[in-house]
């Protein structure tokens, strides 16, 4: 049947940011493949919101058990949709959802999978697909071609430009039956806890200030939070800082952590390992503050200050405060 299938989510009356990125990736290859973009929706989200981005067909499983996320039930619904839609490509977000479901979906559909994709191309004459991803912690770039279809691909968050609206369009909705039953859920949610330090979401922030092992302890982060408040930004961290328990894991930036794409990224006491840098490739301006002039972070930074953060941050906070008139 073919098509580029996007696992979509609509929240508060709009497609989610990750859905728009998937649609952006789908639009990039749809013309080259000469195949339509299709989507799957779980629950009751408005399909018209997806038609407006060029989606031609929406496959929907609507079931009360899909209201809250539960991996096994979501997977069963997705598997059903996959078998009904029979697309050529299945795009999932490379976030916590994709990390949970993509491999299992590929196993069930007995097909190939490529994860953390940063680019997709279509060969102009052969119409074959080629995925690009990082390997070896960002030290290498791999080009991967699928041999089995539908190929499942997860797109690295904050890497593909969100899709543009295609104007007033309509599409077709196809209901998909999935006989779900609570007993199929192998895991039970006990609690969901939100963690935020400055009220600005790290992924959405235009200014991100991250701290690493060089801060020497959790107290160092107080200065970062202060600067972030003044600049209306968010605070991130390296893995060394999260591993030490100075800040929660949800603040980690990098290969395992989050991808951020702010206008301004300030790395404080972070050496610049490739696995950290993998999370900031979309940052427009990178500033590094580090005592070691040889630190790798200066190889990716645009502006560098060699110095102790304890001497740099207080005057920086004071000057920024004057500027914003606080």
């Amino acid at each position: 049947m073919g098509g580029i299938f996007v696992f979509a989510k609509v929240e508060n009356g709009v497609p989610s940011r990750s859905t728009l990125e998937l649609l952006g990736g789908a639009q990039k290859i749809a013309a080259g493949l000469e195949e339509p973009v299709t989507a799957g929706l779980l629950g009751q989200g408005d399909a018209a919101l997806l038609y407006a981005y060029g989606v031609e067909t929406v496959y929907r499983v609507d079931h009360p058990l899909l209201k809250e996320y539960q991996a096994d039930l979501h997977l069963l619904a997705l598997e059903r949709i996959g078998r009904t839609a029979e697309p050529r490509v299945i795009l999932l977000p490379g976030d916590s959802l994709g990390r949970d479901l993509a491999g299992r979906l590929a196993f069930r559909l007995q097909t190939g999978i490529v994860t953390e994709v940063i680019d997709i191309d279509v060969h102009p004459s052969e119409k074959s697909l080629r995925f690009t991803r990082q390997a070896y912690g960002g030290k290498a770039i791999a080009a991967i071609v699928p041999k089995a279809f539908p190929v499942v691909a997860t797109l690295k968050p904050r890497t593909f430009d969100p899709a543009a609206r295609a104007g007033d369009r309509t599409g077709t909705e196809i209901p998909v039956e999935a006989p779900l039953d609570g007993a199929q859920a192998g895991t039970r949610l006990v609690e969901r806890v939100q963690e935020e330090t400055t009220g600005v979401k790290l992924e959405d922030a235009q200014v991100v200030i991250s701290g690493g092992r060089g801060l020497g302890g959790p107290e160092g982060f107080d200065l970062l939070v202060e600067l972030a408040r003044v600049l209306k930004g968010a605070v991130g961290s390296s893995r060394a800082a999260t591993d030490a328990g100075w800040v929660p894991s949800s603040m980690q930036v990098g290969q395992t952590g989050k991808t951020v794409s702010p206008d301004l990224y300030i790395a404080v006491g972070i050496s610049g390992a490739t696995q950290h840098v993998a999370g900031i490739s979309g940052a427009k301006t990178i500033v590094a503050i580090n005592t070691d002039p040889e630190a790798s972070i200066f190889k990716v930074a645009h502006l560098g200050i060699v110095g102790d953060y304890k001497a740099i941050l207080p005057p920086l906070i004071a000057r920024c405060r004057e500027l914003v008139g606080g």
Partner: protein
Amino acid sequence: MRIVVCLKQIIDPELPSSQFKIDPGSKRQQPNGHPLVISPYDENALELALQLRDQTAGHVTVLSVGQSSAVSALRKGVAMGADEAALISDPALEGSDAFGIAAALAQGIQKLGPPDLVLCGCESGDWADRIIGPILAEALGIPCVTYVARAEKHNGHVRAQRVVEEGYEIWEVTPPLLLTILSHESNVPRYPKVKDIMTASRRPISTWSLSDIGLDTGHVGNAVTRVEIQELTLPTRESRCEFLEGEPGGQVASLITKLREKKVI
């Protein structure tokens, strides 16, 4: 509690980029005598396994698919405190993708006997596909929770803290189950004692071929991969850093000027 921890041996992922070379033929990193280590998150997984075992009673097995060199990774696992170790090694495994590796792990786990808990790293330090754990859970037909920072036993269940974008979730699962483990302050890998390293170095490690685990060669190897690595290249990186000189006050003043020119503040 019977726990199996899947350990992958890799070239030290913290080597600087300057020492990273690609072998264009095999499309993999050139080993060049660089140190071989246990993929970092697998050590966190093993640490968690040892803690869970030590809280009550149990048995921890470390299991790896790889070449004979991986025996040293398993020995380190034993020195850290694992009760048993096994290596699955077979020339037919060469060129396997994630499905081939997971099939071998699944058969190895069957041979060890039914586990209560299987632990994997959340992602490996080389390819970081993030899928071996979830695929292995499917192959074993058990539930799976990914990117777990900590886990504990709770009234016959396991409670796992899964890190998500907004914070974390606590999931409760009845064994058997599989978790993929993230580093966390609670699972910092212990250093093995010199005495335990010595004992482990004399321990025979079982090495199984595919026929030993009852896996047909048709399930593994390059012939059955579902994707193909077409090319592996080095990223282009241009250094463009402008250093701001002077005393801290002057550095900060220059920084502010530059950031205002760029209109980012």
